[in-house]
């Protein structure tokens, strides 16, 4: 009996100490937004620059062993507010372990001007193992400001007036063909959507067709936890987790309700417009 108990205890500990591994490469390069070419910095899954940040997931009761390679010639950084803040030397690397994160969504970013402001900001989802999970990283840019930061490490002294509004580094209509943005599912599915505001302005999101339940926010002042909402704001730096359980089939937009943000270089439609594609 005693032996059985000890074996069970050890087994449980082994299970609870299970580790998942992932890798991030901090890459800088130029990418297209509309007809423009602008400078960006992203946390990629591979050493090759791609126009998106890799989103991370830690299953419940597991830890994440994360290897980060900085391919930039400048010191970069990996920060999750309240959890970790670690610099990574130029062309250097580091390994970090993340565990004991409560179920929810977190934003990781480089706290360097030439990191976060160029787009180095992604989403980490902890838990929600048995759900379909999506991550929407909202980030807007003023194109020439990105170029100035990348080339001179300075921001131009002009008012911030963003001209491209991105979800997972894409703008409408590209969001409609981006499998990380466009949600596909079926009636009755439990779909987790983690939504981060990695930009410099407040965004407000509106769902067509459905209400969603707000499950979690990293913002202690968010008073809408457990509310059922079709529209809600996302403050700068905030990450909100919502649960969508579609009750009917159809194609429905989800978009920023600050309607300046549904444009590309001032033209509608564009920017932060996404799509829900729900089958029976």
């Amino acid at each position, binding site marked *: 009996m005693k032996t059985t108990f000890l074996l069970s205890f050890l087994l449980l500990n082994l299970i609870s100490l299970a580790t998942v591994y992932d890798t991030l490469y901090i890459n800088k390069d130029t990418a297209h937004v509309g007809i423009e070419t602008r400078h960006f910095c992203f946390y990629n899954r591979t050493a090759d620059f791609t126009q998106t940040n890799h989103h991370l997931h830690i299953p419940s009761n597991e830890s994440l062993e994360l290897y980060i390679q900085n391919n930039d010639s400048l010191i970069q950084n990996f920060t999750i507010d309240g959890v970790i803040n670690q610099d990574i030397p130029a062309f250097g690397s580091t390994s970090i372990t993340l565990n004991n994160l409560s179920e929810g969504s977190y934003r990781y970013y480089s706290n360097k001007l030439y990191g976060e402001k160029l787009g180095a900001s992604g989403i980490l989802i902890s838990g929600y193992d048995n759900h379909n999970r999506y991550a929407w990283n909202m980030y807007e840019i003023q194109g020439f400001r990105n170029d100035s930061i990348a080339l001179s490490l300075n921001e131009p002294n002009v*008012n*911030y*007036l*963003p*001209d491209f*509004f991105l979800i997972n580094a894409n703008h409408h209509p590209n969001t409609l063909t981006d499998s990380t943005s466009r949600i596909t599912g079926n009636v009755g599915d439990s779909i987790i959507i983690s939504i981060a505001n990695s930009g*410099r*302005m*407040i*965004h*407000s999101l*509106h769902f*067509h*067709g*459905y*209400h969603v339940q707000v499950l979690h926010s990293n913002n202690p002042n968010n*008073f*809408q936890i*457990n*509310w*059922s*909402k*079709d*529209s*809600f*704001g996302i403050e700068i730096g905030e990450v909100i987790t919502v649960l969508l359980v579609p009750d*009917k*089939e*159809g*194609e*429905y*937009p989800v978009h920023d*309700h*600050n*309607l*300046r*943000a*549904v*444009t590309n*270089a*001032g*033209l*509608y*439609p564009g*920017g932060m417009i996404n799509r829900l594609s729900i089958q029976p």
Partner: protein
Amino acid sequence: MRHFLLITILVFSIGKSSGQDITWWVASKMDDNHTLWDGQQVNIWAFGLYDSVGPIRSTLPAPLLRANYNDSVHINFFNVSPEDHTIHLHGLDVNQANDGVGSTSFEINPNDSTTYKFKASYSGSYFYHCHVLTTLHLAMGMYGYIIIDYPGNVLWQNGPGYNKERVYLISDLDKSINDNPISPGPLNEHDPDYFMINGLSKQDLKDTSQVVFANGGDSVLLRLGNMSYNKAVVRFPAGINHTVYMSDGREIPNAFSPDTLVIHSGERYEIICKPSQYFVDSIQVDYYDQVSGNLDETNYIYWNEQPDGLSDMSKKALYVYPNPAINYINLHSESDDYLSIYSHDGRLIDEQNIKRGDNHIILSELSQGMYFFNLRKMKTTVKIIKQ
């Protein structure tokens, strides 16, 4: 002449039934104008009601549309303008065909019409707005409120009750766009310079049609919604004794009483206030730019005591009595006007001229039920119960 939009509704609808077929007639127009607080007029593209003689003047915000919980609602929509429009039923979770988004359903061409349908499954506050070239069409004024009432002046079944109601729609306007909508410039540079509640600003909000009149013992339901390009921060004064119960057409699980309430674009709230005796104060509404974070403007919702012997529709605007009524109703108007009587499902029943002062309206030929009395000049609609 100033046009004061009066969407204030006096609540007298205890006992009205739900589960009926309701039809609204709505038109989209692009040839009307709106007077700003400083007297300037701007072009608006907006919605108005549509009656037997055609579209009625459109307004900013659009006419308030109401139905009851569990009603089956039809919206007969007529586009009497030279460009495509739709009606998006914001927050009502309608199916794809009725969602009013051109890319996933359809747009209504000039001089064409359609009928949108939905079931009023949840009581609460919603918006309707055009979803064609949305950034521009909303900036021009194509938005309004839809309210789904739960019978008995409660927010939901066995929910908190109220005996008075005020509806406030927060919005803004970039005059340069309204002045030149054909070449509005880059829409990401939309920069509002007029900040409104129910289409009014500053001192215009002291108009009795907009002031909350209440006494100790009253339970006043405030419906607040934001269709602006700003973050609205609502600051409640001490003594108003408010509780936030609903948002976006849903009961919230943790009713609360915040000193300030942030309302982002697209959100709606239901708040019940039980002011203390002799409560005279104001609710402050701050408009913060979502890009710069700067405070752009402040407006106020004014509160005052209920004057003796008056309904809270105010002496200046309009008052009616008795309501509910049996054979007749007295209607006091401060100006000559034109009265249209609509049935609960939106059918035009009768029309007649109204003179300044007291008017005796015979109701004996009307069957029992709910009616809407619309005064065209005053742009006021009052709900009447015929017993």
